[in-house]
């Protein structure tokens, strides 16, 4: 069974803006799914419709086979939502926020307290559980949103840019927690601007642009489309100009830094042999950009050019 099924979903707001132009999307149960797209592409509208915060103009969204439009209450019981913006009452304590959220889903109060403690401990907020929420840092507030979304133990967890503005250490701990949740069987749908997150965490991906799905495939297949990779090479000794090597594009970024772009079919050994012959010693090497980011930019730019 699919965790999420979307058919011909359209949304036109009262100001005439069409945010979704009849999209179809399937997310399999147990998947870790990335939903990517530039700002204003329709991601938040789509999440809004699935979580019933936005009314669809037409079409249908089903969560584990339950229609959001026809059986809203049943469908909502299956979903946990981590919104893009902090939306809890900042004059309440984290413990109360999580316990109350459990109550809205029908979790008895005693069990809600136990679960609130469990998830606040898991997310590293138990020591702040009884402080006023407004005193929490930005990263803590984001973690509280995750604990709140998990307290009724949903089968589908939707995270709308959950790590925006969060430092790398907290971001990593958050991803570890979310990965464990996914490994335990919860389907996860993620939107993020950190594309390396999507590349590292997600198995399947959809790219949405101007209200349309422009790509819907597995991350592996998508990355397979990338035929050229670019590496940044740090050199031991400075050089004056980029060497010429057949089939590999080399650009000298500065006297000690060389950029090499080569097709995936070409071996890196060939690059290193050629550099060694020219007495150029490489001390370190890294990918110039995130691979998914390159594809994302390429796909979105292509769509925009087509429409223009």
């Amino acid at each position: 069974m699919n965790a999420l099924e979307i058919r011909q979903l359209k949304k036109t707001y009262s100001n005439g803006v069409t945010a979704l132009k009849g999209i179809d999307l399937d997310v399999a149960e147990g998947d870790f799914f990335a939903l990517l797209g530039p700002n204003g592409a329709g991601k938040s509208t789509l999440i809004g419709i699935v979580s019933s915060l936005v009314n669809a103009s037409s079409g249908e969204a089903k969560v584990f086979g339950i229609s959001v439009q026809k059986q809203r209450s049943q469908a909502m019981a299956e979903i946990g939502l981590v919104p893009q913006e902090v939306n809890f009452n900042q004059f309440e304590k984290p413990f109360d926020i999580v316990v109350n959220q459990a109550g809205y889903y029908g979790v008895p109060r005693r069990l809600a307290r136990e679960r609130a403690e469990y998830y606040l401990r898991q997310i590293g907020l138990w020591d702040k559980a009884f402080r006023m929420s407004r005193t929490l840092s930005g990263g803590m507030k984001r973690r509280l949103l995750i604990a709140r979304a998990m307290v009724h133990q949903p089968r589908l967890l939707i995270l709308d840019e959950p790590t925006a503005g969060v430092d790398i250490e907290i971001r990593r701990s958050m991803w570890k927690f979310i990965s464990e949740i996914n490994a335990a069987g919860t389907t996860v749908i993620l939107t993020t601007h950190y594309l390396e997150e999507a590349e590292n965490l997600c198995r399947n991906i959809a790219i949405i642009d101007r209200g349309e799905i422009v790509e819907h495939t597995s991350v592996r297949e998508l990355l397979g489309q990338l035929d050229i990779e670019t590496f940044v090479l740090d050199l031991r000794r400075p050089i004056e100009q980029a060497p010429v090597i057949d089939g590999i594009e080399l650009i000298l970024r500065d006297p000690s830094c060389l950029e090499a772009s080569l097709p995936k079919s070409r071996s890196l050994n060939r690059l290193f042999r050629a550099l060694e012959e020219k007495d150029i010693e490489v001390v370190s090497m890294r990918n110039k950009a995130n691979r998914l980011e390159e594809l994302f930019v390429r796909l979105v730019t292509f769509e925009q050019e087509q429409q223009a």
Partner: protein
Amino acid sequence: MTVKVSAASYWIGYKTILIKEVTRIVRIWAQTLIPPIITMSLYFIIFGTIIGRRVGEMDGIPYMDFIVPGLIMLSVITNAYGNITSSFFGAKFGRHIEELLISPLPPWIILAGYVSGAVFRSLLVGALVLLVAGAFSGFHLHNLPVTLSVVVLTAVVFALAGLINAIYARKFDDISIIPTFVLQPMTYLGGVFFSVSLLPGITQTLSLANPILYMVNAFRYGMLGISDVSLWVAYAIIIGFGAVLLTISLLLLSRGVGLRS
């Protein structure tokens, strides 16, 4: 395992909203409970003791005793209305209303939770004002069922009216316009401080179009056994208003007016 949606889960949801509301009211007691007590004490001192001594009796009742039911109703009305507008609009403004909107709770449970919270505060304040009044004029009770039913129904009516106001409100000014320019004048002209029989012809007839007049008089009947209007007409008007406001509130919440895009 996900909790299944059932009557039991709705009941837990309702209790959660109510507990949250009661906690909020108690947490900010200096804003919710103290001001009405101070205001009403001043009314009792100025209108009851100082002016009331010169007025003497109203409808055969000492003036101090006469104004007690009206002042309790004034507190109940303003607190029921004020509680739900500030709480619901605050949740909308701070976007934590989304916690409820994405939950499985149907609109009628959300409505019941918020209305119950507003009724709780208004009855608590009403009881505190009654205690203050007791210090000035002693306690009077003519008919307990009438007293209780009228005060609860009135609190429900104004909680529903406040909810509709909060649903449409877009800024904080929008939740203060109706209490200031509609509710307060209607309450003061609704027989809190005087019997409508004192008003000249046309004014008396116009006063009968004010629903608050019926609420105040029905409550006065419950406490003192006197009323300017028929008790049954008063019940019909209170219940009628309640039914209309309930229908509108449920319709607005179900459609997500002002809440869902």
